[in-house]
């Protein structure tokens, strides 16, 4: 039979445990619960205080009281754990109840854009870089010799009318094409060479389809035994990569005889129209009817530039021997390529710098 003291202590312990349960039921934060826990089972807590009286009991009664104390502590800790879990569930549920309007825009500064003429230039450079062409550039202000004479276009040659030239002070001109870069490159070192020369050129033209400054890109390959077939293959490679993305059939290239003083034979370069894939027809009429392609005007071809085999006189001008080396050159207008690629109708858009136009080219 336990003594009266022992029975009282055991009763107190049980009561404290029950009291604690009641107390924490009303607490809403973990901090308060922990504080309450400390008040009961901490070093100076009420359970600990009770246990200090344990020493007064006879030794044989202590195990029963100790057991009751452990029971009370266990009950309190169990209540704390349960209460905390409950609180966590509530907090989690509350947290998960939050929501946002996913249709509002994302935060942060917008990235800017590169000019479509830059994008097209880079794409062209990359395509040619892939087959061993390196980029070369040259000055805007040129000598007539580099721009014309060295390119087999002597003074009073009617071909000079093909490009009405700007003259600047000091007897110099603004280059009317990127071809002087060919001359500068060839004079700078021996063949073989493969270059691509992008840059602005200047001609005295200013109307709906001409701007007095416009970007061109020029290619030149000089080596032994280079033929017209190499020119055609190179241009085909370019056209298929530049226009062929997403095309269901291989786009072709068409060379048409033409005339440039610095090439012989010369050719205009047509690419198969990428919109109608060279058929000249599209099924975009009313109710899916077939009609002529608007891009190539039904011809199936779009003109992209000029080309040809380097004229022997050009080689002579730069000190190359036309008997041992041959080569081809080609050139195209970047504005035209950008208009074709991005569906830009008005050439002037490229120079108006309207942010609403520019910001489309992300």
């Amino acid at each position, binding site marked *: 039979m336990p003594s009266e003291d022992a029975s009282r202590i055991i009763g107190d312990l049980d009561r404290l445990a029950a009291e604690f349960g009641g107390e924490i039921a009303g607490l809403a934060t973990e901090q308060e619960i922990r504080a309450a826990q400390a008040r009961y089972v901490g070093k100076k807590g009420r359970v600990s205080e009770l246990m200090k009286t344990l020493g007064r009991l006879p030794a044989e009664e202590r195990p029963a009281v100790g057991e009751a104390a452990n029971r009370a502590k266990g009950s309190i800790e169990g209540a704390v754990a349960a209460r905390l879990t409950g609180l966590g569930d509530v907090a989690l549920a509350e947290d998960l109840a939050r929501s946002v309007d996913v249709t509002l*825009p994302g935060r942060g500064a917008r990235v800017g*854009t*590169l*000019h479509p003429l*830059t994008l097209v230039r880079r794409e062209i*450079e990359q395509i040619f870089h892939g*087959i*061993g*062409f*390196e*980029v*070369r550039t040259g*000055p*805007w*202000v040129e000598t007539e010799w580099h721009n014309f004479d060295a390119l087999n276009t002597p003074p*009073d040659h009617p*071909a000079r009318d093909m490009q009405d030239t*700007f*003259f*600047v*002070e*000091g007897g*110099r001109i*603004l280059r009317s094409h990127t071809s002087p870069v060919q001359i500068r490159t060839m004079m700078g070192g021996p063949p*073989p060479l*493969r270059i691509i020369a*992008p840059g602005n050129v200047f001609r*005295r033209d*200013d109307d709906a389809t001409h701007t*007095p*400054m416009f970007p061109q890109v020029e290619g030149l*390959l000089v*080596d032994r*035994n280079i033929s*017209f*077939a*190499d020119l*055609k*293959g*190179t241009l*085909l490679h370019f056209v298929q990569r530049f226009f062929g993305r997403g095309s269901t059939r291989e786009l072709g*290239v*068409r060379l*048409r*005889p*033409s*005339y440039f003083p610095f090439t*012989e*034979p*010369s*050719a205009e370069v047509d690419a198969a129209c990428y919109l109608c894939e060279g058929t000249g027809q599209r099924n975009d009429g009313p109710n899916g009817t077939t009609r002529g392609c608007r891009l190539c005007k039904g011809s199936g071809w779009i003109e992209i530039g000029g080309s040809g*085999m380097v*004229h022997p006189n050009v080689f002579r001008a730069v000190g190359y021997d036309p008997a041992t080396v*041959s080569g081809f050159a080609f050139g195209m207008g970047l504005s035209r390529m950008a208009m074709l690629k991005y569906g830009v109708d008005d050439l002037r858009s490229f*120079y*108006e*710098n*309207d942010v*609403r136009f*520019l910001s489309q080219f992300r």
Partner: protein
Amino acid sequence: MKISFNWLRELCELPPGVTAAAVGERLTLAGLEVESIERRGRDVRGVQIAEVRGVRPHPGAEKLSLVRVRVRAAAGAVEEEVVCGATNVPAPGGLVVWAPPGATLPGGRTLDRREIRGVSSPGMLCSEAELGISEAAEGILALSPSAFALGADFAGAIGLLDEVLEVNVTPNRPDALSHAGVAREVAALFRTRWRLPRPDQITAAPLPPGRGVGVEIRDPSACPRYTARVITGLRVSPSPLETRVRLAACGVRAISNLVDVTNYVMLETGHPLHAFDLDKVSGGIVVRRAQRAERMTTLDGTERPLQEGDVVIADGRGAVALAGVMGGATSEVSAETSAVLLEAATFDPRSVRRTAKRLGLHSEASHRFERGVDANGVLHAGLRAAAMLARLGGGVVNGEVVDRYPQQQHPRKVMLSLAGLTRTAGYDIPLAQAAEKLTSIDIAAEIAGDALTATVPTFRPDISIEPDLIEEVMRLMGYDRVPARLPPGTRAPATSPEALSDRARDALAAQGLHEAVTWGFVPRAWLKALGRGSAGRVLDEGVVVKNPISADYEVMRTSLFPGLAEAARRNLARGVADVALFEVGPVVLRAPDAKDHPIEPLVAAAILIGRRADWLKPGQAIDFYDAKRVVDELLRALGIDEPSYRPIPVAIPVAIPVAMPVAMAEAGESIGAEATRAAAPAILHPGVSARIFSGGSGDGREIGLVGEVHPVVRQRFNLEQRAFYLEVELDAVVGERRAPQSIAPPRFPAATRDVSFWIAAAVSADEQRAAMAGAGEPLLREIAVLEDFRDPRYTPPGKKGMLWTMTYRAADRTLTDAEVDAAHARVVEALRTRYAIEIR
């Protein structure tokens, strides 16, 4: 060159069913690009040729008559009575043009049966104007009875129904500037035959007494051949209808039979001709270079000063024509002309081109002479025209032709080797096939072994070397026959010279700016608005364009600022509120010695106007530090991690008044290089701008500038809001960005301490930082500024409040609070020793 398909078909056989479009396609693929095909005469439909049977007065109108005409109906010939207001109705048997009900005329007019003053008229009889042939509205068109069949469709019968090919003839092909030349090409392409029309038979009459013509060529290099014929007894009248219709199709206005014949023969043969009024030419003809200070009046009535290189045709009194360019007013044919001297000649292409270009006289004749007129075709063209003149003008050709041909032109021999042909074409073309192709365009070819010798006629001046022949063979074979292959061999291409500017572009776009492209040339006033610039860089004087299209493109840009400012202004004017534009490109600067080639430094520049990006609402107005951040990121991309920024010394008067006194620029020079350079950002606000250096604390090269646009400059460019501008000279930024080198993250925690104090406003953040770093405290790892506080309500006069945060860390242990406090005290003490600060 406009080529009439009707005319072409007269000169060249075509396989049945070949359309103008098919001819155009073949020509295009052979190098004579047909740009368009104009269908003519389609608006005159259902109009027929009718025969006049009789005329009686209109019962209800004095000025009208009733013309009875025989016409063709479905059932055969019938008679109709048509109300007509003309007074020139031919006598019975004459032919007129009847537009019956249902017929259409130019302008979309459709005829019907109409009651005119009580008489019902089936359609009408037409004038030339109503048929769209000429301006002649007086009277109806009467046709020559022998030439047309009754009831024939009018548009078809007179050649109104035609298709005109617009051929873009490249400058190397003077032979194709004629119907005959194009016919030769078409015949070769379709493997048919063509013919040059033979001149009409003429019976030469003797020269009338005193009308002999002497011709002397003083300078054979100016005129390799000159022929002249005299035709007398001419009567000036309009040309026959078919001739006029044909000229109109080719874009040439009919004038009179005399003039029209020369144009007709030019369009047919490619040889320009000129007719002088014989009665206005006195003495013999001399072809010579113009004399110094010589003048002449061309037939457009303008008196023109001549230069010594010009070639003129002169008579005893002086120049009567600018050779190959334009005739003279004094010898011009007129309605009274009865005798002409017909010139068929060829002139030096370069001289003609120089003269025509200088005088701005581009004519059909000069166009051809510039490209080269075949001396050996001159005689034929002259004879053809003389005979036509005699026929159409009712005159006679007198005496023998005068032919001066001091510079004989001979066909050229050009070799073509099989090896050369294969090497260029890239595929095998048998020599026999090459010879056949050349022969088809009248180039004789003789094969011997592995080469052929071509005899190139003089009408092909463009063919002189082997590649020229190769092109002829290849284009006639068709470029589509050439296989496509990639050139053999590859080489690793070197890095692009554009790599640096492209990195700058990427960095600027990544900062939210949009790339602009502005003109390379600008109005002079724009450069003047920039002010003088520095000693090393003159901004307000650029390389001048001597023949600008307009004042907008007068001078090469010396700065990217004007173009960007203008682009920004346009955007603001269009309602775009926030403008952030950049451009990367060259500027053009005069070399220190004007004789040297200009220099073209590559510059990256940007302009910023408006607000910072915020979320859902407008952000704060951008300021200097937004622009500086752009520079920082740009430079980082270019491999400059620690640039420094220096203000412009305030002592230098960088503000430029609207009218800048010259004295200021001079003062700048005298203060020395440093001060002059400081004046560089004259386009920027003196207090809100900085010069940029490539190295820390003002070391390294000066590479650019950044700041607020000077209010005066801003006004000049019509920018109403504050704008910020930055530019970095890329050529000054050499070297590639190196790969970043990794440092292991620290293993022990850091502790931070803040310090807040008042300090003189003039002490820059960099100076404070340097003072604190100067403590040499080994535990100090980072100094970061948190605040620059300048609210006048709270700040002591002349002071600013600064808040810094310092990071302390040791590499080998966790620091104790006491260690950190001690280190921080040493750092603050170092600052206090250097500057008077008051801890807040």
